[in-house]
């Protein structure tokens, strides 16, 4: 209690409201409140505010929040079909690179050249030819570079190993990207 004006301070009233006064001070304040209408009204006012604040409603949360968290942590076996499908995407992407690499390696080795099947199917379209050529050139260049610096690797083994590693890295990268977006964007 303030000795200057013989009224309770705001801090004392609030501390009493919060149950934070020491027993001796609490007794003094309670005694004063019984005798002082002014402080008593101030206390009632704080008490009313306190009660109203305790009744403030909590903010609503998106119903899927828990599911999103579990999905992001990969903890829920009941994840939605879409989510499970999306989980495959990075690995499918990695697999595609691996298969592409193998195909390119075969093309590069000439295994498919002038086979009866190739002759039956005919020449690939220009676009496919350009892509194959690009993949092949990339594989050859990379493999030559590797085998130059690491002679214990054969050119083909070096090219395939490196691209396999690249496929894994790509898969992991896309996986992380999608996983992260699922946390934030899934509604």
């Amino acid at each position, binding site marked *: 209690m*303030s000795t200057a*004006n013989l009224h309770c301070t705001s801090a004392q009233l609030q501390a009493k409201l919060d149950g934070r006064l020491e027993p001796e001070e609490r007794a003094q304040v309670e005694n004063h409140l019984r005798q002082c209408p002014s402080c008593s009204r101030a206390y009632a006012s704080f008490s009313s505010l306190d009660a109203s604040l305790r009744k403030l409603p909590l903010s609503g949360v998106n119903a899927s929040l828990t599911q999103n968290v579990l999905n992001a942590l990969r903890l829920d076996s009941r994840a939605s079909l879409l989510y499970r499908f999306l989980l495959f995407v990075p690995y499918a992407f990695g697999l595609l690179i691996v298969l592409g690499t193998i195909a390119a390696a075969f093309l590069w080795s000439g295994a498919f050249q002038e086979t009866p099947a190739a002759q039956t199917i005919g020449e690939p379209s220009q676009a496919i030819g350009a892509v194959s050529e690009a993949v092949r050139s990339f594989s050859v260049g990379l493999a030559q570079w590797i085998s130059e610096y690491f002679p214990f690797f054969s050119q083909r083994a070096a090219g395939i190993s490196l691209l396999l590693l690249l496929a894994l890295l790509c898969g992991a990268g896309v996986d992380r990207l999608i996983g992260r977006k699922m946390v934030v964007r899934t509604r």
Partner: protein
Amino acid sequence: MRDADLTVIEEIRGGNPRRFALLVDRHKERAMTLALRLTGERVEAEELVQDAFLRSYQRLDQFRGDSRFGTWFYRILYNLCMTRLARRKGNVELLPLDDDAGLDALAAASEEVSALEQLEEGEMRTMLSDELNRLPERFKIPLTLFYVQEMSYEEIAAVTGLPLGTVKTNLFRGRNQLKKNVLARLHEEVMRS
């Protein structure tokens, strides 16, 4: 009393990670309320809440059980919110602080009656919620942690990293400021009608 969350955490550590959903369900609404009060933007608040839950799961090994899980979790959320607010230059803070003389004269202001009690509950909630959102961060944060997260002074100090004395002062001043603002608004509305 034993923190009910600790039991769940033990189950998670014991090999049942999906029990984490229970912790999320228990805390998500309060977490959202805090994040929304701090950021004022729903999508951003939800993103921060999700991020806080992810981080808390990933760091669950670091939770030693010295405090309630809530205190530990809300500290993560609070730090994320503060980091986000710090990036928004110019939007954080602050109204001038009332001087103490004004606060201690409170007892003399008996004419303020218990106008707060005269409001209908719905009106009161809306008004309080608005006015709480308008308070400066240093008042809004402890008040929200105290009333929404139901934290003690000590827990608020642990979450915000502020000294206990500062927490108390901000809480008291925040309540005073809030009461004054609500009464002023009430007065305005009475004058208007």
